[in-house]
């Protein structure tokens, strides 16, 4: 299969010169041509019978707003364990949780919530403890038990409204030091396998000390 185009190269294919070796290879390789046809169909995004693109657009826009820009969605979020959890808990409860975390930090007691990893896909075979320890100067050390089948983890800082503020790059480590950003109220650990999320912790309150 030497000379076959990788999936990631497909986007640059149309810009290749007509005599480029890759273009010549694709013209004679069924596998590459099939991949190219699939990629072009993806980009064209032609309407399909049974698909509801208007509803999808609206709900995905709300999801993107919530996750990326931190704005609260105007329409119902999608089905998802964490999303349901986020929108079913009153904000005052989160405030109380954060206050409890502050008290724990003052007493120099490690926060150790039980069963804090939520498994997606219904496997639910593990109980994982997430620990958060404040290091001072807005930094916190997070550690957790390895999740079966996970090949990397990320740690996200969330606002009080549980919008993602920033996310650390994936790493195989199960201990990370996080610079808690301004407005960061919770930390959340995400377990990945081949880049896909397989488990997420519940948001763990973290109090950023006052200066």
């Amino acid at each position, binding site marked *: *299969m030497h000379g076959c185009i990788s*999936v*990631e*190269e*497909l*986007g*640059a294919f149309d*810009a290749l010169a007509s005599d480029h070796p890759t273009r010549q290879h694709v013209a004679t390789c*069924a*596998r590459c*041509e*099939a*991949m190219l*046809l*699939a*990629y072009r*169909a*993806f*980009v*064209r*995004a*032609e*309407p*399909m019978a*049974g*698909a*509801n*693109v208007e*509803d*999808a*657009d609206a*709900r*995905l*826009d709300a*999801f*993107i*707003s919530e*996750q*990326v*820009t*931190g704005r609260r969605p105007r329409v119902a979020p*999608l*089905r*998802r364990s964490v999303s349901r959890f986020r929108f079913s808990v009153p904000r005052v409860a989160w405030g109380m949780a954060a206050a409890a975390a502050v008290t724990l930090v003052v007493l120099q007691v490690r926060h150790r919530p039980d069963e804090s990893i939520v498994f997606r896909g219904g496997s639910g075979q593990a109980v994982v403890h997430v620990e958060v320890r404040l290091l001072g100067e807005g930094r916190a050390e997070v550690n957790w038990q390895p999740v079966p089948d996970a090949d990397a983890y*990320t740690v*996200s800082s969330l606002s009080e409204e549980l919008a*993602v*503020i*920033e*996310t650390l*790059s*994936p790493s195989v480590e199960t201990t990370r030091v996080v610079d808690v*950003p301004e407005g960061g109220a919770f930390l959340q650990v*995400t377990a990945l396998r*081949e*880049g*896909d*999320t397989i488990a997420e912790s519940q948001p763990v309150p973290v109090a950023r000390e006052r200066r």
Partner: protein
Amino acid sequence: MKDPGTADDALLAQARNDPNSADARRSVGELLSRYRRPVYLWCFRYVRDHERALDMTQDVLLSAYRRLPEFEGRSAFSSWLFVIARNRCLNEMRNDARRDATDPDTLFDDAVSFDERIDAEMRGERLLTLAARVLDATEQKAIWLRYSEQLAVEDITALLGLDQKSGARTVLQRARRKLRAALEDG
């Protein structure tokens, strides 16, 4: 989607300029919004279920958002995202296949077992060599799209611009017959 490359690059540059700023998040949001429909329709193509396709799209967009710091810009953003969407869809199909494998109605279905054999062997050099030898170009592409990309027959018909009446079904049946004969011979 006109000239997505240049505009995507500009949004990515803005996002990288000051990753934690509100402007950067807006740029990332715009970039993901731009591709939400292609991703949704790609997922829908596999599962033909609106809610399930939305769930999968959400996973893809979230995965892309979280992995964006890893994206080095050596490929187009659209093809990078396509990799994530494609993997998500193929994983979903594999999970479905595993569930179907426990269905007693399919255990002794010869067509299913031969399809699985093709599916398994698509990864090997042997079937590739064999396909190149015994199948014509359209049959090879149809086999690739069906067994490697796991696309539905009607989608393959459209992608290959085949006659709607018989479509890819006839092409795939012919290709399977040829492959079966070649595999049994060799």
